[in-house]
Structure formats: C-alpha cells, structure tokens
C-alpha cells in the first residue's frame, strides 16, 4: 500500500502552495500590511462614517507599509 497522496490532494496542495508563495512568500509583512490597510479602511467607513478620510489614509498606509518593508533591509549600523 503506497503512502503517496492522491492526485487530487497533490493538485490542491500545489495550488495552495502556489498562492502562499505568490501572496506571502518572503515578504509576510506586506501581506499582513495589506490586510491591516483593508481592515483600517473598513473601520473608517463603518465606524466613523468618514469616507473622505479614507481617501488620505489609504495611500498613506500603503506608503508606510512599503517604507517599513524596505527599512527592514537597510544595513545595520
């Protein structure tokens, strides 16, 4: 009896691994940041009803996420 997983299991596993590598990969902080950005924008719209504020906050958070991710790669002094 072979322990090798079935073709369907391997396909599903390969599919999930692809998306994991594609969306998370070696920069999990960018995945987390995107989830946080969307979450904050939802809260701004639902809790405070300040849609106009989201116009400013959304790009600022995106720039902040990129800055933090790149900043982590700067050489330590």
């Amino acid at each position: 009896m072979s322990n090798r997983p079935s073709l369907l299991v391997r396909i599903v596993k390969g599919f999930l691994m692809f998306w994991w590598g594609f969306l998370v990969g070696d920069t999990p902080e960018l995945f987390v940041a995107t989830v946080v950005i969307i979450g904050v924008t939802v809260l701004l719209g639902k809790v405070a009803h300040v849609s106009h504020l989201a116009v400013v906050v959304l790009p600022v958070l995106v720039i902040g996420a990129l800055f933090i991710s790149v900043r982590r790669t700067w050489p330590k002094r």
Partner: protein
Amino acid sequence: MMVATTASVSSVTVLVLAVFLASAVEMVEALTIVFAVGHTRGWRWAFEGVIVALAALAALVAAFGPTLVQIPLNWLRLIVGGVLLIFGLQWLRKAVMRSSGLKAKHDEDAIYAETVAELAAEQFTAGRDHVAFMMAFKGVFLEGLEVVITVLTLGTSAHRVGLAAAVAAAAVVLVTIVGIIVAKQLSSVPENAMKTTVGIMLISYGTFWVGEGLSIRWPGSDSFLLALVAIYAVAVYGLILASRQSVARTKEVAA
C-alpha cells in the same frame, strides 16, 4: 460628460501602461530562458515547452476567467485591489532595493549563463529531451502566470478584459520580435525602471479598487488614479534616495 470622458481615458491609460509594461518585463525573463534552452539543447524542445506552457496558460484563463466575472463587483474589486496591492508592493520593494544598491540588479546575462550552465551539466539523452522541454515550459509558464494574473485582475475589475488581453498579447509579440532581432542581448532592457513603473501602477490600481470595493468616493472619480500614480511615484523616489543614503552612510562607517 467631459469629466467622465477624461476619467475614463485616465483609467484606460493606466490600465494599458500597467499591463503592457508588466507583460513586457515578464516576457523578457521568459525569453532569456527559452533562448538559453534553444541555443544549448536545440530549438525543437524549446518550442515544444513554449507551446505546452501557452496551452496550459490558456486553459487556466478559460477555467478561472468566467469564475471571476461571477463574483459580486464590490467583492471582486476588494479582492483584486488587495492582490494588486500585495503584488505591487512586492515589485516595488525589490525595485527600490535594486535601485539603491541593497540588492543586485536583475541581470539577464547572468540568468542566461546560469541556465546554460545548468543545461550543460545535464547529459543529453537519445530521443526526447525532457530537461530542455521542462526548462522552457517552466520559464514560460511561471512568467506567463504573472501576466495572466495581471490581465485577469486589472481587466476584470475594469470591465476591460479584452483590452487587457490584447495589450498583453501585443507586448508579448513585440518583445519576441525585438528579442529575436537582438538575439540574446536582453540585458540592455531597462528592467528595473520598468518594474518600478509597473509597481507604482499596480499599487495605484490596488488602492483605487480597494477604495471602490469599500464604496469610497474618490475625488474626480477615475481621474484620481493619475493622482495616486503621482503620489506614489514621489514617495518611491524619496524612498530610493533615503535607501541610497543609508547604504552610503554604512559604507562610510565601514571605510
């Protein structure tokens, strides 16, 4: 009426530029691998790998394209926006690191030499050359997959899948023709500058669609996309300068 037309033109311009540049960059990478396979192991296996990869990509589009259209528009835009944000931020992170010297630039000559060395290490077998076929297949399929995702996500959410697909096809054909003419000298393509531009457009679209998915009203409607592109371009330029300064200061301290 005038505002609506301007907004629509802005949206289409960003869509066309983003899809064209993203497809061209991915095609340069795929072509480098195909050239290495063709020159080293023969063109027959390289072409077979390319054709099977293109068929697999077409099957993926046929399977997932119609499914995407079934998703409610707001959810689709939110999901697509999120994916584009992650995708664009990943591209920009690498591009900023390469521009500032934190990471080695993507060198097509080095990739070509590496692929040739890898293929030379594998022994030729009589009959079918599975190694050459798989190398060409993987190169085209993996790079092509990024093109497919860009076309489907940008195209579907903007209701312009046909336009996005046509632009991607034009980029693929153009890069192939130029690639054949200049042989394997693809290293002269300003890949990092193109990646930076695509990254800025992807996060601009990502921001825009996330906002649309959450019913945010952008000032000037679709025209705000151009403002986002400008804002992000300035921010990325500033980040590149800051990263370069950090690298320079570290070198000064070390010297």
